[in-house]
């Protein structure tokens, strides 16, 4: 096996292809490179979300930004007690109940398992989404931010805000070569007791993965379908590719 052959292939993937072999084992440089990547990812998991910086990055959207807290008081508890991360603290319930209702789409931004991902991409993604929502005639807001929330925290947030749909942007657990992967979850008629089957998910949103513009296109398509048809989850297939292909076949994208 020539190394050159894999040099060509590596431009197509970040996967660890063509590693050196020592007998059946992995050669020392590649073996230690793996350990280094794991060390960096482990360190990333234990970093907390900087709420002040996140709120500042969201301010250009011109929407109210609300800090909410889950029932997980610290990162260690958050890691071992997902049930705490799925529910709002009593204080946050009270705060959301006190708000005026009415917006159709609620947004929750959470650190999840990679505060790095949330800090890097959430505001940029929302900068693409919010105008899209408005263009579709949908009202949006406020943006809730939670340092230690799970996806299902959005159900309680959306229900308390009286939203028709909740969008959750959350840091996904970091991989060795993707420490900054953001996930987006769409749930229609949010309320306590929703399950994963009720949600649509776009994952791996990051510059080297699902690029932000593409993620925004899919989220807007799914949101539009979900709002129109009143469904989300397994009954709502992500047919945005088919729509895109059909549009392409008609030449619409070539001129646009």
């Amino acid at each position: 096996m020539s190394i050159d052959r894999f040099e060509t292939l590596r431009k197509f993937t970040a996967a660890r292809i063509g590693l050196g072999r020592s007998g059946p084992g992995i050669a020392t440089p590649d073996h230690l490179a793996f350990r280094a990547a794991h060390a960096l990812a482990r360190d990333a998991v234990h970093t907390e979300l900087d709420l002040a910086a996140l709120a500042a990055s969201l301010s250009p959207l011109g929407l109210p930004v609300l800090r909410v807290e889950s029932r997980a008081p610290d990162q260690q508890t958050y890691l071992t007690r997902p049930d705490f991360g799925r529910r709002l603290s009593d204080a946050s319930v009270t705060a959301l109940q006190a708000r005026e209702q009415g917006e159709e789409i609620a947004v929750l931004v959470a650190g999840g398992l990679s505060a790095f991902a949330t800090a890097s991409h959430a505001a940029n993604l929302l900068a693409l989404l919010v105008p899209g929502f408005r263009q579709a005639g949908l009202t949006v807001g406020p943006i809730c931010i939670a340092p230690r929330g799970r996806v299902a925290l959005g159900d309680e947030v959306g229900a308390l805000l009286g939203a028709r749909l909740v969008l959750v942007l959350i840091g996904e657990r970091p991989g060795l070569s993707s420490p900054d992967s953001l996930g987006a979850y769409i749930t229609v008629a949010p309320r306590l007791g929703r399950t994963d089957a009720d949600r649509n998910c776009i994952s791996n949103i990051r510059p080297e993965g699902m690029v932000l513009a593409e993620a925004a296109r899919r989220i807007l398509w799914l949101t539009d379908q979900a709002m129109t048809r009143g469904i989300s989850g397994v009954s709502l297939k992500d047919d945005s590719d088919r729509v895109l292909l059909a549009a392409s076949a008609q030449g619409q994208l070539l001129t646009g």
Partner: protein
Amino acid sequence: MYAHSIGGTRFSFPDLKTLLARATPHRSGDVLAGVAATTMAERVAAQMALADLPLKTFLSEAIVPYETDEVTRLIVDTHDLSAFARIAHLTVGGLRDWLLSDEADSAVLAAIAPGLTPEMAAAVSKICRAQDLILIAAKCHVTTAFRDTIGLPGRLASRLQPNHPTDDPKGILASIVDGLLLGCGDAVIGINPASDSPQRVHDLLSMLDDLRQRLEVPTQSCVLTHVTTAIDLMAGGTPVDLVFQSIAGTEATNTSFGFSLATLQEAHEAALALKRGTVGDNVMYFETGQGSALSADAHHGCDQQTIEARAYAVARRFSPLLVNTVVGFIGPEYLYNGKEIIRAGLEDHFCAKLLGVPMGCDVCYTNHAEADQDDMDLLMTSLSAAGLTFIMGIPGADDVMLGYQSTSFHDVLALRQMLGLKPAPEFASWLDRVGLTDAAGRVRPLDMPERFQTLLTAA
């Protein structure tokens, strides 16, 4: 009511599911669910009470209600009393001794499998030490086939998992070529797609099918999309070899996954009708993993390992080619560290093999678990000694799409060399035919065969 005294203290357990939960070796998910023993003494007292329990008890006390759970109904309604007759006189403790005995050889174990319920298998696993879980599982042979034969003694197959963060066909192809050159992919070439879009899944399946035919490699392909998507794609003529679904041990969990047993039945029949297998007709690929029921809040107060074993009843109903416990993927809230992941992996493999399910293992961990590659080495080696059906082969053990660490192509080579294991026979012949193996059957570092070069040039 069950009870046992240990160290002068009497511990009692109100029902069977509580007894099973308290007897389970420590894991974070059972603590999270509030069903774990609170002291070590309570745990062993529960294990002693469990050991004294007649197996017949499991036929009269359901841990999840028959009336409201179709998995329980499946377990009860398909239980084979004549197969059970040979072990009907035993207690759980007696079953452990019998399983370890010479009387329980491979043929006998295969014969009693339909007489075992998942709860019986889970119960006996809880009083087994790791060595028992390995020794007994090694006697259980479960063989399945599609384009090659999986699960024969002395074989270790691998799923080639060429995931890519954006499903880029060239990126996926690069990982597939790397894996095939390292002798991996006999269980399946299986992609976790980044998007569940039917169009995307169709394109990937078409690409895999084209690749398989061009290389004439005797294996099967799968894109791990939702079962309902696969049903639609099959109806539309997409080349689907294996139908995939994540499954669990309670109806409510499966509902949260978006399917019922009837859905699986429909998919199974549709895949069989395609007649794409050449040496067998096992057309389903399932994944499982402890903790999924609790994650969906659908565990009915049971421990996660018992619920996991119930998923194997769902699996065996549909004669799968492959089942895979993705043991460390779910995270530290269910399996906290390497020790818990290792124990869970051995339990899952043991219970599945006892029940006649072709179990492989995604020996894996996430970056928020207290585990590392050393823990994986211990688990993959133990499981291979136990006769594991297949493991994952991923470039450098780093899945760049799912963001977790599993096992590498090199790990597959290492295990085969260490334990004298070979790939599936049809696949081994192919490796030899295309010049990838030496006279001893070892995959050798070589210049790329010409047909691979052609493939890459085309890409």
